[in-house]
């Protein structure tokens, strides 16, 4: 039998690192094939090779048994290979239909036939149950729908082999369910899918087989029906994984963060946080649960001095920081792992070393009289790279060229190492592999044990339930309830997050 895709003995090197080493991947027709591996294992690299974005240093690619040469994405398209990238490539103020046909527009005579385009898109959308309105502008639709537009785009080009690189990292739980449904429908229609994800749950729900990669090498390919989640996780990391739970006793100390009657406006000058009260103590992890867009971002930004406080007061260790500048707040003891590591967590074009001192570069011992002490910075960076197991050729490497998970480790290393009194962690494990999640959860728990206050914001209810000592549910800018994780469940949290306090109390 010939495979839909067969990549044989692929090798791809980057300066200082072998990203793919003798990798062989065989994808059967009509299957969903998972690609599973640690951050920086080389999954995206392998897929970029298949999609013609990178040229392999060695190895061969076969499509339906035919040896092929893929020198750019156009070649890939011609061979029926399509890719949904993690960062969408849509034009915001074009309509859905315009985005989809861009590059191969249907014409009548010389003119663009927009009616026909709309009809094609609508038919495709119906056929695969994608539920996309071709006439809407991309800027007006949700992230989940934008992703479906990306899928339509490759279906429109007639692709049979669909690559999804971490499609679920940006989706809500409901959107993830929908996406899995869609993928299942696609393979029923004869498409083959390669899915990269860090979430075992998704692999076991959606996939037929799974290839595990570690440090650029293939560890093995398994049938999902023959394995179980913990086996697969161990296989990927190469040791036993224990996602830690918060089992140290809950012994809150002094108030570290105190928020009184806080009102914060969003960018449109509408209150996003409304008269919110909250306290976080030393020695506790307070989890904030809530549906995206209920004021979480504005709340954190207000604490960090990045957004103006409209009304109310914020105290850090008893000191009023309501009107202080970000730098002063950081100096007063704030650590912050921002949600968007690319935009806010890292200067991507700085080296790893430079990024490690982003808040401390001006202080001793990293600077003397305004002059940077590059040797000291290098030494510190090397130490953190080792301590936090950041996979990088060295501290002189640009942050941009690290894999997503390792970029996050740089941010976490920097923030935790400063040992702040209050650590805000916003989506700290988004896009991270299980090993890295274990590591980061351990770090957060250590901070708790050290008596620091941790404010955790996450859309992953698992994570909130696992780590928190108390869970504050935010809804429309208010904390509508604070619950004990030991006495609650996903169901109750779900109701509370939807603003149904009474129902939530009874559940």
């Amino acid at each position, binding site marked *: 039998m010939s495979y839909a895709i067969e990549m044989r003995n692929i090798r791809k090197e980057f300066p200082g690192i072998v990203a793919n080493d003798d990798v062989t991947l065989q994808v059967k027709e009509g299957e969903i094939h998972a690609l599973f591996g640690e951050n920086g294992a080389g999954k995206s690299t392998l897929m970029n090779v298949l999609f013609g974005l990178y040229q392999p240093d060695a190895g061969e690619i076969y499509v339906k048994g035919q040896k092929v040469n893929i020198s750019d994405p156009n070649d890939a398209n011609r061979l029926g290979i399509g890719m949904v990238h993690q960062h969408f490539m849509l034009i915001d103020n074009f309509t859905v239909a315009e985005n989809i046909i861009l590059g191969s527009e249907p014409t009548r005579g010389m003119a663009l036939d927009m009616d026909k385009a709309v009809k094609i898109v609508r038919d495709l959308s119906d056929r695969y149950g994608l539920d996309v309105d071709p006439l809407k502008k991309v800027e007006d639709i949700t992230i989940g729908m934008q992703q479906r537009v990306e899928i339509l785009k490759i279906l429109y080009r007639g692709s049979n082999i669909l690559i999804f690189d971490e499609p679920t990292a940006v989706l809500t739980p409901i959107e993830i369910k929908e996406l899995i449904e869609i993928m299942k429908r696609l393979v029923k229609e004869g498409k083959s899918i390669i899915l990269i994800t860090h979430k075992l749950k998704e692999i076991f729900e959606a996939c037929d087989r799974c290839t595990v990669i570690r440090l650029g090498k293939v560890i093995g390919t398994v049938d999902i029906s023959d394995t179980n989640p913990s086996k697969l996780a161990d296989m990927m990391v190469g040791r036993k994984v224990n996602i830690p739970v918060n089992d140290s006793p809950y012994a809150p100390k002094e108030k570290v963060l105190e928020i009184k009657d806080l009102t914060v406006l969003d960018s449109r000058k509408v209150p996003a946080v409304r008269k919110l009260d909250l306290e976080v103590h030393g020695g506790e992890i307070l989890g904030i649960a809530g549906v995206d867009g209920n004021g979480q971002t504005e709340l954190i930004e207000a604490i960090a001095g990045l957004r103006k406080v409209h009304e109310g007061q914020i105290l850090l260790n008893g000191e009023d920081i309501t009107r202080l500048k970000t730098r002063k707040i950081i100096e007063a003891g704030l650590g912050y792992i921002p949600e968007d590591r690319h935009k*806010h967590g890292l200067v991507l074009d700085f080296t790893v070393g430079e990024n490690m001192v982003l808040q401390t*570069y001006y202080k001793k011992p990293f600077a003397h009289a305004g002059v940077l002490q590059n040797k000291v910075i290098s030494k510190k960076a090397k130490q953190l790279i080792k301590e936090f197991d950041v996979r990088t050729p060295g501290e002189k490497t640009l942050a941009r060229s690290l894999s997503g998970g390792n970029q996050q480790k740089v941010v976490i290393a920097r923030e935790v190492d400063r040992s702040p009194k209050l650590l805000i962690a916003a989506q700290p494990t988004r896009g991270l592999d299980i090993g890295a999640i274990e590591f980061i959860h351990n770090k957060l728990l250590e901070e708790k044990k050290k008596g620091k206050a941790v404010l955790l914001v996450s859309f992953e209810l698992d994570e909130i339930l696992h780590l928190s000592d108390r869970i504050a549910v935010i809804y429309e800018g208010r904390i509508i309830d604070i619950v004990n994780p030991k006495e609650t469940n996903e169901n109750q949290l779900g109701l509370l997050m939807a603003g149904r306090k009474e129902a939530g109390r009874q559940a």
Partner: protein
Amino acid sequence: MSKLLTSGKYFHILVPLISVVLGLMVGAIIMLAAGYNPILAYQSIVESVFLQPYYTGETIRAMIPLVLAGLSVAFAFRTGLFNIGVEGQLLAGWFVSVATAIFFGHLPKVVLLPLSILAGGIAGGVWGIIPGFLKARFKVHEVISTIMMNYIALYTTNYLIKHYLYTQGERTPNIPDNASLASPMLANLTQGSRLHWGFIVAIIAGLLMWFILWKTTRGYELRAVGFSPGASRYAGINVERNIVLSMAFSGMFAGLAGTMEGLGTYQYMMINASFIGIGFNGIAVALLGLNTVVGVFLSGALFSALQTGGLTMQSDAGVPVDLINIVIALIIFFVGSSYVIKWVLNRLAKRGEKN
């Protein structure tokens, strides 16, 4: 070889090198088509610049303001700003340095010369701070505001000269010797060229830029803000202040470029009917020099050599000097379209890998 092309350090250096070669080649083709001998033309440039002291001196002399203008553009660019206002900052620096020199002419040289240079640099810096402030405070794009500042500088300096410092010949009086950078020794050495001590100022400026950007906490902030205002803000860096500061430094380098013309080359300032162009050439110098200090010196040298040597080309090879301006324009064009060159290189490299 193909790996060498696309990977790592050498790749980005290739683009300007190829641009220069392409510029010279296409220039040669145009000369051929117009019935001139390009080999003779280029030969006369090289011979004059390297073998005739006068032209060597004049080349270095032309380099001084060009390099400073290039440093100005590169500094702003390193911090994420596009300073089109070098021309105006240069004029401001030129005027203020000359005015200071004339006004305080009674002071001894050890005081007056540094004072005039400083005044010129500060004037350029102030001219840069204004658009910097407008950007930081009101989000006015610096490209627009610096272009407007150029016109304000042009007409203001003309007005001030006309009304307060006018002398025959549509210019200011000469500056006193006490404030001059000119040097009979350097002139003698180069058979009467206008080479002056300003080259030392340019070298110091280059070292200063390198030191500030790469060795100081201030430079760290400036670069961080240039690369990622978002991450900088989250790290507690004052983005607005660094934008203003960056424009101040950039403007200072531009102001010094003008100062060099005032205290060095000309010893006065003339009324300018239109822009003198050094500021705009500085953009090309910075681009070709990849916004690095060494690169700016190299590309500044190249442009100056072509311009100065172009004069002998006319007499020695009978090729009109306009043609050398075409060559310069071509090089700028190719650098500007570096995207195309990169694309071609990538294709070549890929082809190489396959075979």
